[in-house]
């Protein structure tokens, strides 16, 4: 049995989670400071990928990054391609997982007690220090929830991924596209193995989240 899809799914989900973490926090922080009406508009745009069918996201991504379109052609000419490459899987996963991180982080930032930041400022701390050492730790649980949801969404991405990178057995196959391909070619037994692997992965993930949360709670009590 070839374990490439497991490795590929994990690297796509991991890298896209890291990207989504930074991009999501960045936008959540700066947008929570904007005037209300702009916030409303941007919020809708950033949340759209969450409610749109993944095939719609895939179509739009192809419209931009496809090799028939200017942006895609330019990127291809400098050696970057998101079409039929595993990196394209990261792009698809980032787009669909971003809203989860963004919304979780924004909700956390909005409930943050600004007095803490001001207290830091009176002590002469830099904004960067306040952000990473006061704001983020205080919003920890919301942010962790966001990362976990984003990772799970990235791991399960199918629609946009299959449109962007297809199914190449040793190049772009992920667990979800492998399950579909094996099932559609009457290899249900092999598909079942991948289904079980995926269930196992997801269970481990949720378990570790619970562990982290419990640890956090115990710390607070102590």
């Amino acid at each position: 049995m070839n374990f490439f899809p497991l490795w590929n799914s994990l690297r796509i989900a991991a890298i896209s989670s890291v990207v989504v973490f930074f991009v999501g926090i960045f936008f959540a922080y700066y947008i929570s400071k904007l005037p209300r009406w702009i916030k409303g508009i941007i919020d809708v745009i950033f949340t759209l990928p969450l409610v749109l069918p993944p095939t719609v996201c895939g179509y739009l991504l192809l419209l931009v990054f496809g090799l028939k379109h200017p942006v895609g052609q330019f990127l291809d000419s400098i050696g970057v391609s998101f079409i039929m490459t595993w990196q394209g899987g990261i792009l698809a996963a980032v787009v669909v997982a971003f809203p989860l991180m963004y919304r979780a982080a924004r909700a956390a930032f909005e409930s943050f007690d600004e007095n803490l930041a001001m207290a830091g400022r009176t002590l002469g701390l830099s904004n960067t220090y306040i952000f990473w050492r006061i704001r983020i730790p205080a919003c920890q649980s919301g942010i962790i929830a966001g990362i976990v949801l984003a990772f799970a969404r990235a791991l399960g991405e199918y629609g946009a991924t299959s449109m962007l990178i297809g199914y190449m057995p040793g190049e772009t196959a992920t667990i979800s596209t492998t399950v579909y391909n094996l099932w559609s070619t009457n290899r249900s037994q092999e598909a079942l193995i991948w289904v079980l692997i995926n269930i196992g992965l997801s269970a481990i993930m949720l378990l570790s989240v619970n562990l982290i949360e419990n640890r956090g709670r115990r710390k607070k009590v102590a």
Partner: protein
Amino acid sequence: MKKTGLVLTMLGAALAATACGPAKEDETKRTKLYVFAAASMTETLQELEKKYEAKNKDTDLVFNFDSSGTLKTQIENGAKCDVFISAAQKQMNGLADQNLVKTETRFDFLENKVSLVVPEGNPKHILDFGNMCNRLQAKEDGFILAMGNDDVPVGQYTQKILTSFGVMQKTGDVYSFVDPDVEDHHVSYCGNVKLVAAAVQESSVSCGVVYRTDAFSNHLVELTQATEEMCGRVVYPAALISKTKQETLGKKYLEYLKSEEATKVFEKVGFVALANN
């Protein structure tokens, strides 16, 4: 609370709107005839749908287009289906072996050809099947062939072509790549012929293998057609499904598909009609 109420009202209104949608009076009397047809027949059968329904006001054609392999699985699982048109004998034989088709209604309907197609401008400068196979074997960087998977008729024809050039091999009934690296890094599998066509159209791959009718309907650049020596004849059989309750309507529809009017539409895109009246 107020908000929830509003949302629920809107949902209710939306549901009501769909429920009493555009139900024309004459449509209520129409009998639905479920036609499961190979994906490569999408355009032609849809074109004929209007003509047929205009002449037969009692029938409402309901189509399900997908790879013949998927359709076969759906029929085996009890999907509601009256007429089955397959892109290869294999799937029809499979159903016949389980007594799921009315054998007396089965006939060879159309013949098609398998084509090598490339994106606009042929960016990889592919010449023909031989050239494509050489470059697959050489594992040329970035060279990708889109083909139907092994449950899809066009994928099975592609396997035969690749075997005739030594890229694949046949052991018993099973085809496999001589060099697994070629499959792993240079083949993109698609779930039906239209998905192969879409990948080529989108320039996502270097080339693809489809039917000549898809090359025509999807305006693809066709390089060459496979010969009978490469992949055998490509024949589409049609038949009624055993469980059908619409035998008369189904037979009438199959007869119509053999008519001159229908034949013209099929031949326009490159099919050869095998069962002219």
